């Protein structure tokens, strides 16, 4: 054993400061997760891509190259309507979440002193608890026996409970904002909290008022977090099918629900794969752009 120790010592003196990694070495450290990512992320996405060029007939896969799924995806008017609705909703939810979320993030990051952990918890509880349960909980507000109906009955505005609040795009919109908002607040908060107080003081010492300091100092420095929040929100709406399924009815059908249907009742996997790949490409592009601006380091 003595020569092993001697060898170790020799290696250590040869390259000081470069051996802080545990003994596993580069392959042992990088290998496991790299292999995992190649097998369970890169390969599945590639196979999804291949599937999207096959077709399905009488519930049988036909392993022949065809572009018909993409032609159907982009040519079919139903798909275009649903995709258009999903994109509009994604923009709308993102805009709403930004308008509501930014002031909240600002308040927690820069106004709250003693209760910071409490407010932080208030944001991350709805963020990490079940999305399914939170979306569903909007039925308690909007449903025929929900709180909104009860309130309107009590106020005398309605004579009997109305079912109109559920099963439409607006219900989906409300539930999405309610469920996704924390994903907007947290990254903005992280960005805002990192801004040194001295920068803000310097700005006001130089005579800038609040709005000028906000526009020239605070907002630009919070951009990575804001961009991250917007990306998360947009992508979450893009991939939603739970809110669409539980609250959307027929007028609130989103692309996620259509894709889900292809793998369920409609049983057209290749078409579903093509639609998934379109969603993937769109989300990937957004994430890559956000990543270039350092947004993925937040949150």
């Amino acid at each position: 054993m003595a020569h092993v120790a001697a060898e170790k010592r020799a290696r250590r003196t040869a390259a000081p400061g470069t051996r802080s990694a545990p003994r596993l070495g580069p392959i042992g450290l990088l290998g496991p997760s790299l292999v995992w990512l190649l097998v369970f992320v890169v390969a599945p996405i590639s196979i999804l891509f291949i599937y999207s060029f096959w077709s399905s007939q009488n519930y049988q896969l036909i392993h022949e190259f065809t572009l018909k799924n993409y032609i159907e995806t982009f040519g079919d008017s139903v798909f275009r309507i649903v995709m258009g609705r999903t994109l509009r909703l994604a923009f709308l939810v993102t805009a709403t979440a930004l308008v509501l979320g930014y002031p909240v993030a600002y308040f927690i990051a820069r106004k709250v002193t003693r209760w910071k952990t409490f407010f932080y918890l208030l944001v991350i509880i709805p963020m990490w608890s079940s999305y399914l349960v939170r979306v569903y909980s909007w039925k308690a507000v909007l449903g025929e026996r929900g709180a909104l109906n009860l309130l309107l009955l009590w106020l005398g505005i309605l004579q009997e409970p109305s079912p109109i609040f559920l099963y439409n795009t607006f219900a989906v919109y409300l539930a999405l904002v309610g469920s996704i908002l924390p994903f907007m607040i947290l990254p903005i908060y992280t960005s805002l909290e990192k801004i040194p107080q001295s920068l803000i003081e310097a700005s006001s010492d130089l005579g800038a008022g609040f709005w000028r300091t906000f526009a020239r100092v605070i907002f630009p420095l919070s951009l990575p977090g804001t961009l991250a929040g917007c990306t998360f929100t947009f992508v979450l709406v893009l991939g939603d099918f739970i809110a669409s399924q539980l609250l959307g009815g027929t007028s609130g059908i989103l692309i996620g629900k259509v894709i889900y249907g292809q793998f369920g009742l409609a049983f057209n996997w290749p078409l579903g794969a093509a639609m998934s790949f379109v969603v993937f490409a769109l989300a990937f592009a957004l994430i890559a752009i956000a990543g270039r601006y350092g947004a993925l380091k937040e949150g």
Partner: protein
Amino acid sequence: MRRALSPVLPLVVLVFLFLYIPMILIVIFSFNSSQVTILPLESFSLRWYEELFADREIIEAFRNTVLVGIGTVIVSLILGGTGAFALHRLQFRGKSAYEFVVTMPFVLPEIVTGIALLTFFVWMGQQLSLVTVLVGHVVFCLAVAVRTIGGRLQSLPRSYEEASYDLGAGRLRTFFLVTLPMIRTAIFTAALLIFTISFDETVITIFTIGHQNTLPMMIWAMMRRGFTPKVNAIASLTFVASLILIVIVGTRLREQA
């Protein structure tokens, strides 16, 4: 210390009401004795909770959920822990690409990850089971492990480890006696957060599960059948379980920040 109230305070209060009122209503509804969910409540009852705990299928699903959660934590920590070390203690080409691929499944729509895994498993002739669910959860959670442990590694001064080497400790000894104690809390935080995510994960699970059930799968099936006090009870329980876990994780995350 009294200061002028911030003008954004009313908005902040409204936003938090908006975030929490639906869940609070669900919890209230779950104690309603009547079969139909209606306000004002007929009378307070634990009936629906008793039904849940008597339901063997739900207990079985709960057990499966915990098993998948524990498995996901173990696999994610091994893969993510080594990955975090590679990222912050090694120099290699394509580091930013590696980081991007690690983060990607966490940010991608889960429906895409779920469907990609489904087509992959079918292609490989792999039977869907709790193991395939576990794989899906690890794919999603790997980023959490790498980020949480990596964040801690990055903030650690290298001098501790270097001092250990200078004093003649080998790499294993340094890892177990110096590095590990310093990142232990980060590992624990990552484990809790991953368990919480896995416990509530629905979308990837829908596409990767076989004939067995996890709790979110049962809830999903029950929800699609209707809005009943029993669904409200199981939704409330899940929410409270997550809430407890998140409060523990969140407090730790704040302390470490």
